[in-house]
């Protein structure tokens, strides 16, 4: 068949599709696109096979590409299954990353313990981690004397702190994850230094016997926050490991596969850190609640987070 006859025969369909691609906003055009998708594929194949000219092949190629992109477009209502995510996808992703999580945990906690022990025993050790003004600020924040005198924070300030924790903590988690691209080194550094800072602060405040102000404050939101940071480290290490040891795949394919695998972790991390920021701003900061209540709630939160984190195994197909 000569090209012009072919073009003439199908011109109407092509124009119809082009028109409906140009106005994607107008209602659901997926039905008409789906009906004509295979037909267009066939036309493109014919046009290529018969060596019709490039302009026509290009036009058909772009038509098919347009329809394809429209048909496979992201549709929130079909892709986001929140229930399945919490019930299965996130715990399963945690289970599959268990060795990375263990490594991430150790890289954060071991320097934390060592630094904590050091600042607990040695009065001056804290100054090799923080400078003088930071130490004074820290001591003022958790001084039991000041606490008793101070009054309950304004609700406005709580909201400010909520925003601050969201921005700060999630950014740290994202950077911790991204550091994995540098064969995991960036992630390890973020984990190491965060662990060291937190450990040395805890050690120093324990040495000053600010126990009753510091620990009730951190125990609640710590459950979500520390776990989420460990998870973000695990996701970063997964990326780094896929580059270092791609196994049977090419490095690029291994990295791509890792990139797909960590996605549920990323969603989960963001959610956990939003919860943590909420707790830190509105719950942990409250001074009117008794220490017992804070420890009890903190213990419950930790139990929930850990139980949930260990619930993924049964979803693994064997």
């Amino acid at each position, binding site marked *: 068949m000569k090209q012009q006859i072919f073009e003439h025969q199908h011109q109407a369909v092509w124009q119809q599709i082009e028109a409906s691609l140009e106005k994607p906003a107008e209602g659901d055009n997926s039905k008409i696109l789906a009906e004509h998708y295979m037909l267009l594929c066939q036309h493109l194949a014919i046009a290529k096979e018969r*060596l019709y000219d490039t302009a026509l092949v*290009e036009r058909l190629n*772009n038509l098919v590409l347009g329809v394809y992109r429209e048909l496979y477009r*992201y549709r929130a209502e079909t892709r986001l299954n929140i229930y399945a995510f919490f019930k299965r996808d996130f715990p399963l992703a945690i289970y599959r990353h268990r060795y990375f999580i263990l490594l991430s945990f150790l890289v954060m906690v071991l320097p934390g313990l060592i630094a904590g022990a050091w600042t607990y025993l040695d009065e001056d050790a804290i100054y090799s981690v923080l400078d003088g003004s930071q130490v004074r600020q820290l001591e003022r924040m958790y001084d039991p004397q000041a606490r008793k005198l101070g009054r309950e924070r304004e609700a406005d300030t709580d909201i400010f702190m909520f925003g601050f924790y969201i921005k700060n903590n999630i*950014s740290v988690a994202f950077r911790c994850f*991204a550091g994995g691209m540098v064969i995991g080194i960036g992630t390890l550094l973020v984990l190491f230094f965060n662990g060291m800072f937190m450990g040395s602060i805890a050690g120093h405040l324990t040495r000053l016997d600010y126990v009753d102000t510091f620990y009730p404050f951190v125990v609640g939101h710590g459950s979500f926050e520390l776990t989420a940071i460990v998870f973000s480290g695990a996701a970063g290490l997964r990326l780094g490991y896929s580059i270092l040891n791609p196994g049977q795949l090419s490095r690029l394919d291994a990295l*791509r596969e890792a*990139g797909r695998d960590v*996605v549920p972790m990323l969603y989960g991390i963001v959610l956990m850190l939003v919860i943590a920021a909420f707790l830190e701003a509105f719950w942990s900061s409250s001074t009117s609640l008794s220490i017992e209540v804070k420890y009890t709630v903190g213990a419950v939160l930790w139990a929930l987070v850990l139980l949930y984190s260990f619930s993924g195994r049964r979803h693994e197909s064997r």
Partner: protein
Amino acid sequence: LLDTRYRVEIPGGINLEAQVVGPIPRFFAFAIDLAIRGLVIFVLSLLSIPFGSFGLGGGFFLIFLFVIEWLYPVLFEVFMRGQTPGKKILGISVVNDDLSPVTLGTSMVRNLLRTVDFLPLFYLVGLVSMLSNRRFQRLGDMAAGTLVISVPESAKPTAMKNIPPLAPATSLLRSEQSSIVEFLQRSQQLSEPRQRELASILEGVTHDKTDNGVEQLQRIGAWFLGVR
């Protein structure tokens, strides 16, 4: 040869082609987005002042700052068919490497890893990465399995002059036929001397040593297109 065509076999059993986009249009798209983001942040910071810089206003400002810093590209790419405003102006779009539109997950990965591509300063790592592979992928694109392609404008069929068809004197292979048709299609883009030069190579087909060679070829092309 630098070939920016990217081919992928899609369900439907055919190879689809797209043009991957290099660093320069992507830089301009990024610059436009950066300006938009800067403007939004500026306006928000002004709006938040009356509500207390360290209170309600400041809190919401920080949340928006976080969203604009990290999620601006994600939200636009996912909900606006792979295009942030900057990309839309430049006519480029982010797609998965099977040319399907980016999903939430892939867009998150490529945009969170932007931090690494930005290192050590102003996207140096990303640039080196883009220039060292055929798909112009920065590191984030590699991990996410995404590409940036140029969005084809809906090509309007070029109006063709009415050319009286002419049957070729000799039988030609199909590839030769299509070359002649291409010559006809592209003759508007070629200069006259270049057209004559090309036509003179084909004297054996047109049997015409005069300047009419070009016209002869175009008429033969019209014949192969099916004009009668």
